[in-house]
């Protein structure tokens, strides 16, 4: 079966985020960018499904500026077979991303679509569910285990206070949580090979989707900063401060 994986280019998780002085957003100039960590887990899951013989082809799609091709190449180096780049320099919000992915799903007709549960920039946690609703598919969100059996997929989901397993008819959408797997690193030979794998380029207009945003960001501010506190001399003083000064124990 064919698996479609969506990946997003975001600020690297190890980079300190700085708000622009004019409060219009976050400073991304000359900042290291990378594949969203939850998307890495999505790619890894697809590759494991292929290694198990469940998936026959992995198509990776990314929406974003030209540089998003780096993240598509990374996914190809990890084991995806071909890439689709929906290229735009405009801001694409979750609903519009879901509409673009719906158009790709209609062309590719995958049996399974795997996405990260959220991207670590906008933290919306919406696109997978919206895609599922727009395409009339079931959804296994926040997945910690994915088992394909016949024409169904059983997805174990991380929910508040435990785990819940649902059975979904295929085709279906799965969004990944941290426990699903631990992504591998791409080997150098595979990185070289990935450069030769096919990568299609298209625009939102080619897919017939209007990506005008519905939400406008009025301002972006830095959170209230913390001040360093005091150093305590020993454990006894620490416990005393926690009990009598901070009153938290």
């Amino acid at each position, binding site marked *: 079966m064919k698996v479609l994986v969506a990946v997003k280019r975001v*600020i690297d*998780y*190890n980079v300190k985020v700085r*708000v622009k002085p004019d409060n219009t957003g*976050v400073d991304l100039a000359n900042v290291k960018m990378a594949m969203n960590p*939850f998307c890495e887990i999505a790619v890894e899951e697809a590759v494991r499904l292929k290694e198990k013989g469940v998936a026959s082809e992995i198509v990776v799609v990314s929406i974003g500026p030209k540089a998003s091709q780096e993240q598509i190449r990374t996914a190809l180096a990890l084991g995806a077979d071909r890439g689709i780049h929906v290229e735009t320099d405009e801001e694409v919000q979750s609903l519009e991303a*879901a509409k673009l992915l719906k158009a790709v799903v209609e062309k590719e007709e995958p049996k399974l679509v795997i996405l990260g549960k959220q991207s670590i*920039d*906008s*933290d*919306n*946690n*919406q696109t997978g*569910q*919206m*895609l*599922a*609703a727009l395409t009339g*598919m*079931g*959804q296994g*969100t*926040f997945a*910690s285990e994915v088992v394909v059996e016949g024409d169904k997929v059983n997805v174990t989901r*991380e*929910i*508040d206070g435990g*785990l*819940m*397993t*649902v*059975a979904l*008819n295929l085709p279906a959408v799965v969004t990944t949580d*941290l*426990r699903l797997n631990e992504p591998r690193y791409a080997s150098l030979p595979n990185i070289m090979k990935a450069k030769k794998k096919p990568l299609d380029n298209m625009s939102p207009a080619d897919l017939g989707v209007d990506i005008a945003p*519905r*939400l*406008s*960001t*009025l*301002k*972006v*501010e*830095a*959170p209230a900063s*913390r001040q*360093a*506190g005091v*150093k*305590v001399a*020993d*454990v*006894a003083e*620490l*416990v005393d*401060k*926690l*009990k009598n000064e*901070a009153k938290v*124990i």
Partner: protein
Amino acid sequence: MSILVIAEHDNSSLKQATLNVVAAAKAIGGDIDVLVAGENCGAVAEAAAKAEGVNKVLVADNAAYGHFLGENLGELVAEVGKGYSHILAAAGTTGKDFMPRVAALLDVAQVSDIMRVESEDTFVRPIYAGNAIATVKSSDSIKVVTVRPTAFDPVAAEGGSASVEQVDVVKDAGLSSFVSEQKAESDRPDLASAGIVISGGRGMQNGDNFKMLEQVADLLGAAVGASRAAVDAGFVPNDMQVGQTGKIVAPQLYVAVGISGAIQHLAGMSDSKVIVAINKDEEAPIFQVADYGLVADLFEAVPQFEEELKKVL
């Protein structure tokens, strides 16, 4: 304006998060109705009717909603909610699951995880794991919003007297079915909602040493977390990870043991009320955010911490 709040519950009792969401609805202003969707959830509806500020409780009681499957709830809430100006739910795993489906079915954007209401169409929410705070304005006719419960003081659970009406809308999408549920076995609280969290980092050296933290956690009624470094080193499983790519926590007390304080970790815990850092490296960045820092070898300090706590608790 009219606001529909989707109740969070387990079919037998109303979760407090619902009262926090009603508080967010009050901050928007207008009539507030609460939808209780579940199976044999009459007691929940009665509890919701008593909540302060609720105008009307709508009950959709059907087996299709018994396990809160996102496909079914999405269709129900889109149908019931289309006459409202706002649809609100708690940003827990249930609300995060079905609300984007509601938004997509109504062809509107969703505003996720709001911390503050600026006006009927403008909301404040964290982005970049709380490293930046965005004020966003929605131009859609229906605002679909998930609410961070801890950011709003709950309305009173008692004192209201809303009417209760049955809703005969049965939406079974037929796309998904419930298989099983496994509640967390641990007696310790859930990491994301615990009042006290004690976390270990690479300095713990191995997974066995986390038992030291577990003993302290059990004294304090705390949850145990870990830094990404500790997870990547294989000491503990991924689900214990606190940080930008793990759980975001904001407890009353956060104790960081052997954690240097990488940016990715700080992003997940810097909203904690009181932060304690125990680390032998006095230059560790964790001390820049800690209210109380102890420069010490954790293998001496943690057992002492346990002993001292036993004296005062």
